């Protein structure tokens, strides 16, 4: 199977579907004797802080203190959730193993991920990135921290691709604002046209991050797009980076991108997979789940 033969309209359709892919999340705030719940539908390639405002407005109705003054954070089974990762990556990394295990079992609600909201107490700064900016009225400026993270990830991926972050550093201020705006307002057309300006034309390496649920290991190897003038395939990359789990004959793990088991396209060039499946920060996030 290969996308190079696929029509560009098919590719556009896949990209649109990935852009619109969403996750149902139940946010639970333990409060006095009963939990307060809020159901929210968040796009896979969005980020939690983009939705903080909405959550704060709701939960403020139930608590007497001002939520804006202290940084909030989420936990799943006691694990602080890294807000700097795309929501879909968080789901696949923290929750997908349980979903797979329960498939057919029916004990778990596969359609909703329940996470806990924390409004007070000690922010787990040793595990997740603290929010360091405040607005003039002393409320937490979540957007500035998120913007900083995403822009720097974009610069990093740009640098991986062609050894320089110039294309994004040279982006005009108005275009930088438009790019950020397209991410927050989820404007695919605007995002695509601006993102084209910052992706280098010459491709040396492919920005990839490989996550392994059950460990805090993230593999970020310099992966070349071509070897001996031949495009590098995803299976080649996995065999080299994870030789214990992937060989020519044996696969002890499955590979997920955007929550999709992509075993059937492992022999596609990694560059093609990146083109379709990369996230907003132009990194391709791959989740490896060991399986029988």
């Amino acid at each position, binding site marked *: 199977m290969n996308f190079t033969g696929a029509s560009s309209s098919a590719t556009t359709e896949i990209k649109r579907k990935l852009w619109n892919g969403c996750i149902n999340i139940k946010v639970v705030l333990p409060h006095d004797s009963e939990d307060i719940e809020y159901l929210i539908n968040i796009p896979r390639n969005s980020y939690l802080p983009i939705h903080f405002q909405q959550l704060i407005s709701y939960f403020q109705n139930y608590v007497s203190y001002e939520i804006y003054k202290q940084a909030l954070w989420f936990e799943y*089974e006691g694990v602080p959730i890294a807000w700097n990762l795309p929501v879909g990556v968080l789901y696949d990394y923290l929750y997908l193993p349980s979903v797979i295990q329960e498939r057919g079992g029916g004990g778990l609600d596969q359609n909703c991920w329940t996470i806990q909201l924390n409004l007070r107490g000690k922010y787990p700064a040793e595990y997740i990135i603290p929010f360091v900016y405040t607005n003039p009225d002393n409320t937490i400026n979540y957007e500035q921290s998120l913007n900083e993270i995403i822009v720097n990830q974009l610069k990093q991926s740009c640098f*991986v691709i062609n050894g320089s972050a110039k294309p994004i550093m040279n982006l005009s201020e108005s275009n930088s604002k438009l790019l950020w705006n397209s991410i927050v307002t989820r404007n695919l057309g605007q995002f695509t046209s601006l993102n084209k300006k910052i992706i280098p034309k010459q491709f040396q390496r492919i920005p990839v991050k490989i996550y392994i649920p059950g460990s805090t*290991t993230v593999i970020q190897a310099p992966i070349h797009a071509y070897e001996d003038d031949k495009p590098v395939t995803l299976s080649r990359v996995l065999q080299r980076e994870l030789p214990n789990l992937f060989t020519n004959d044996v696969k002890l793990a499955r590979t997920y991108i955007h929550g999709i088991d992509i075993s059937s396209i492992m022999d596609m060039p990694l560059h093609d997979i990146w083109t379709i499946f990369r996230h907003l920060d132009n990194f391709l996030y791959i989740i490896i789940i060991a399986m029988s």
Partner: protein
Amino acid sequence: MSTTLHSESDDSSSYSSSEYEEQIDDDKLQPKIPLSTSVFLEKLPKEQYQQLNKTILDHENQELQPSTSKQDQARPDLVSPRQHTQPDSAQIQKITIRFQSIGSTPSINPKVFKISSSQTISTLSRFLSQRLKHKGLLYLYVQNSFSPNPDETIGDLFNSFKTNNELIISYCYSVAFG
């Protein structure tokens, strides 16, 4: 795993024989894993479970790539019972970090340190803040281009962004590259 930053005098090219060596203790942060994921992994067949653990250990003690491109290296391409022992200090890969101050931000002396490859940017950032006796914001940059995420490991950054076998970290008290 204990982690130390060894400093060395700037003009010394021989790290091990450096007379001037300091260490700072690691925070030894326990990784947090969802219980349901741990349960899922424990139920895996033995082979999957073992190979997964090997994979994770391998990455923590990864071999640093020499300056030549990675594809030239021969690596075992079969699942083989490789030797895995608890890493002792001799086995932990050390990476050379060179700090460069930007603008009016004070420089430090020495500028060159060694750090375990499995350590993260946040360790580096904490160490540098202590060195500078600085309590405010500190921005770190790789390749004078981007700020790495605090949770990125030094080994990964080194493999992708090294210069002459050093990872050069520029730092500033304010945003230097917007």
